[in-house]
């Protein structure tokens, strides 16, 4: 354990090796642009300066800790140099915060108010540069706003290892550009560069001009895109900023998905599939219970389902690997005895999708296979020809492959043609409408919170399963009149 003094206060540095890390860990904030905890040190922004007593001003991100060193984070020379660095950075920065998506969460904006706060010294016109340079189908680059911290370049070299981005030209005409003949489309993690960009230079096309960030708030959630179960934040409008003229759906729309840093699962990153979660969740929803294609009320459908359950002799359940831990437990407790249960994959890898890699993406494209198999066994799906009733929970099953004589009880969330082909269809809620947990392939449990109101006519699977097996309806059949 090494002790150093920051602003006169003794600080235990623990396992940290640089002054910047030790200071941040102990509550002394030092501004920084280019330094990122997951990336290598380049020390090019020159903003994280501190004064080491007796040795002058230097950058904290590359200043090794030595026992008993005394560091000042806010002395006069430090403040003067920070101010000058911000003047340099803002020299040709357009300061178009009014139309910049990053405004409100921009490091440059924050630091300007905190450490500079003065108008530009330069009286000369700003130099123009490229705007809206397409790095990929997903990302635009605004070179006027870029401060050349090289975080994005280092990300593609050190984290995603796609090596797509590089620096072109020299000096103040230097530009971030993709390598010759390549685009960021090659990189399944590309959207992370938008998050780590300290300014608004890298823009996500899906979030471009969608909302000011201060109208939004995040809800912690778990990405259901694969068995990794990355923790994410779903950004939606704050309740007090709902627009009355818009319908509820627009007001509760998920505007963007960002990673929720979690060292046990995904670190500070998620893949592009996780960013596209809103597309997955915005598909047309099934909100109407059906009996052989005829609309019925939810209660009638549950009644009918009970009837099917009682009449059937041989019952098989295809359990959703998208059910939460709570739902799977409710299923086992309420219906586990009635059914021979198999956990099925709801989603398979799509064409063109990265199936598996060394960083995050897993081949199993379902979030909770592990918990389901722990509870119900890891058997391969096998449906005997003489099955009377098949409970299909979740999407991904082709009814044509099921035994002809079997009745089908279908629990689903989406508006699909199969809904009408089932003998009974009951609409169930989705992840963003309820609370729950997923267990990832390594056994790490992560929680998700609701951020959208439950649709009318939809029931939580967790509530449904006890109803299906409720006394009075279970044994004798038709007793619920």
């Amino acid at each position, binding site marked *: 354990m090494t002790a150093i003094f920051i602003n006169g206060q003794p600080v235990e540095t623990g396992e940290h090796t640089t002054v910047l890390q030790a200071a941040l860990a102990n509550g002394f904030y030092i501004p920084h642009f280019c330094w990122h905890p997951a990336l290598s*040190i*380049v020390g090019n922004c*020159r903003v994280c300066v501190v004064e080491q007593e007796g040795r002058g001003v230097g950058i904290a991100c590359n200043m090794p800790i030595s026992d008993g060193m005394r560091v000042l984070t806010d002395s006069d020379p430090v403040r003067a140099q920070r101010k000058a660095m911000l003047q340099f950075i803002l020299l040709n920065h357009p300061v178009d915060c009014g139309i910049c998506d990053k405004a409100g969460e921009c490091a440059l904006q924050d630091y300007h108010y905190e450490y500079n706060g003065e108008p530009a010294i*330069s009286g*000369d016109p700003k130099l123009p540069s490229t705007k809206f340079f397409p790095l990929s189908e997903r990302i635009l680059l605004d070179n006027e706003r870029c401060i*050349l911290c090289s975080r994005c370049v280092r990300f593609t070299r050190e984290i995603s290892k796609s090596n797509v981005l590089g620096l072109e030209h020299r*000096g*103040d005409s230097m530009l971030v550009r993709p390598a010759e003949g390549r685009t960021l489309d090659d990189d399944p993690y590309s959207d992370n560069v938008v998050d780590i960009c300290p300014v608004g230079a890298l823009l996500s096309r899906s979030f471009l001009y969608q909302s000011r960030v201060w109208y939004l708030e995040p809800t912690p959630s778990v990405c259901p895109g694969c068995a990794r179960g990355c923790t994410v934040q779903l950004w939606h409008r704050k309740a007090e900023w709902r627009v009355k003229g818009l319908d509820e759906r627009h007001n509760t729309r998920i505007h963007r998905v960002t990673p929720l840093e979690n060292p046990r699962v995904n670190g500070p990153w998620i893949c592009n599939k996780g960013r596209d979660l809103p597309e997955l969740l915005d598909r047309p929803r099934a909100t109407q219970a059906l009996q052989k294609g005829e609309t019925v009320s939810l209660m009638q459908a549950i009644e009918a389902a009970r009837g099917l359950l009682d009449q059937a002799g041989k019952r098989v359940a295809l359990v959703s690997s998208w059910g939460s831990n709570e739902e799977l437990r409710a299923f086992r407790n309420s219906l586990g005895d009635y059914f021979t249960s198999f956990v099925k994959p709801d989603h398979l890898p799509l064409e063109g999708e990265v199936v598996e890699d060394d960083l995050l993406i897993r081949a199993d494209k379902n979030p909770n296979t592990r918990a389901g198999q722990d509870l119900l066994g890891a058997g391969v799906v096998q449906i005997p020809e003489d099955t009377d009733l098949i409970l299909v929970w979740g999407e991904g099953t082709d009814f044509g492959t099921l035994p002809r004589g079997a009745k089908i009880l279908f629990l689903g969330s989406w508006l699909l043609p199969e809904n009408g082909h089932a003998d009974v269809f009951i609409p169930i809620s989705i992840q963003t409408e309820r609370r729950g947990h997923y267990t990832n392939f390594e056994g790490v449990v992560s929680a998700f919170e609701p951020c959208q109101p439950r649709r009318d006519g939809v029931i939580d699977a967790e509530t449904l399963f006890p109803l299906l097996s409720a006394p009075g309806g279970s044994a004798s059949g038709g007793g619920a009149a």
Partner: protein
Amino acid sequence: MTGRKVLMDFEVTPTSHSLDDYRARGGYEALEKVLRTMKPREVTQEIVDSGLQGRGGAAFPAGRKWQGIDPDDGQPHYLIANADEGEPGTFKDRWVLEYTPHTLLESMLLSCYALGVRHCFVYIRGEYDLPWRRLDAAVEEAYAAGYFGENILGSDFSCDLFVFRGAGAYVCGEASSLLGSIEGTRAFPRNRPPRMTVRGLHQAPTVVNNVETLATIAWIIRNGASAFREVGTEKSPGTRLISISGHIARPGVYEVELGYSWARFLHEDCGGVLGGRPLKAVIPGGISSQVLTGKDAKVLTAGEVEGLTLDHEKLRSAGSSLGSGGMIVIAEGTCMVRLLQIMLRFYHHESCGQCTPCREGTGWMHRIIDRIVAGDGRPEDLERLNYIAGFNDGTTICGLGDAAGYAATAMLDNFREEFDYFIEHKRSKFAGNLE
């Protein structure tokens, strides 16, 4: 003449760069002596004792740099001769490479022996064509004669040399940026710590020395450290190659014993200022220098030059340094505003763009001085130049940013009234431009 000689101790003939001529004047004797009788650490000790200072610009003691490397630590080491002589006004290493490349090769062999180096490099700037051809031919001769390769001269010492041609970026003359160029990455200077003698080329301990520094080593080993100490002054032993250009009657490369009178060098050896005009200023060591520590690029006015001697301490006390040995003489009647414009254009063009102050500051200063020269100067511009220059100095990763800052500060400090005149009258105080 300009004192005793270490490097220019032979007559240049059409064949003086060849191996035969070099052998005839005692070449490779030091190597044979060392391989037979000396241990690596003894060679390093000899260099430490000689007090040899780096000739690239920072004047850092070469022996102290070498002591940062343990030749027996079992890991690979590298030695690189920095021949990327891009400093404006500097062309002294070119003389070594063109006229006596074998001096460099022998010295590098001795250094490799001392530092436990198996592979060494010469990083030569891309614009040097004849020097490169001469060096390449010399390397071939040396390989053919068995001075490089496996088991040199029957000893168990093996060493290979690679000549690496740069592509003409000034910033590659900065030692750590040069490593990036050799490794094939972008030539960005690297943050210290770690020092290059801890983690340099391919993450292995590396020594980067200037060509002139290395070329001196053969002489030191041949004649002994005490003989070297007798040349020059007590604190700056040896000689310097000075490349002198600008408004001078006889420009060229001179070898000057350190401690030699500056006025005598200018007015007698170099024939005085061109056209007999009075001396206005001297830029003593390249407009900046390749490795920077002090106020390297400071311009000396005529009054300061008289009475100075050419050695590191005297110049440092005058607030300047010998830098890279590229001396530029400026005669009375030269417009310093235009001169600063040229210097700042150079820094702007050559800034690598890695760190903020230099990337933005050099361009900012260049645009301001362009505006002043175009007649659109504003009174507050000079304060602004001073501000930018002040925060370019000491805030960057390498010395290029510092140098750009010094250049502007030095010019503004010494010739302020010329700048004020230019802004007020929208034209130069002097009728003529730079010649």
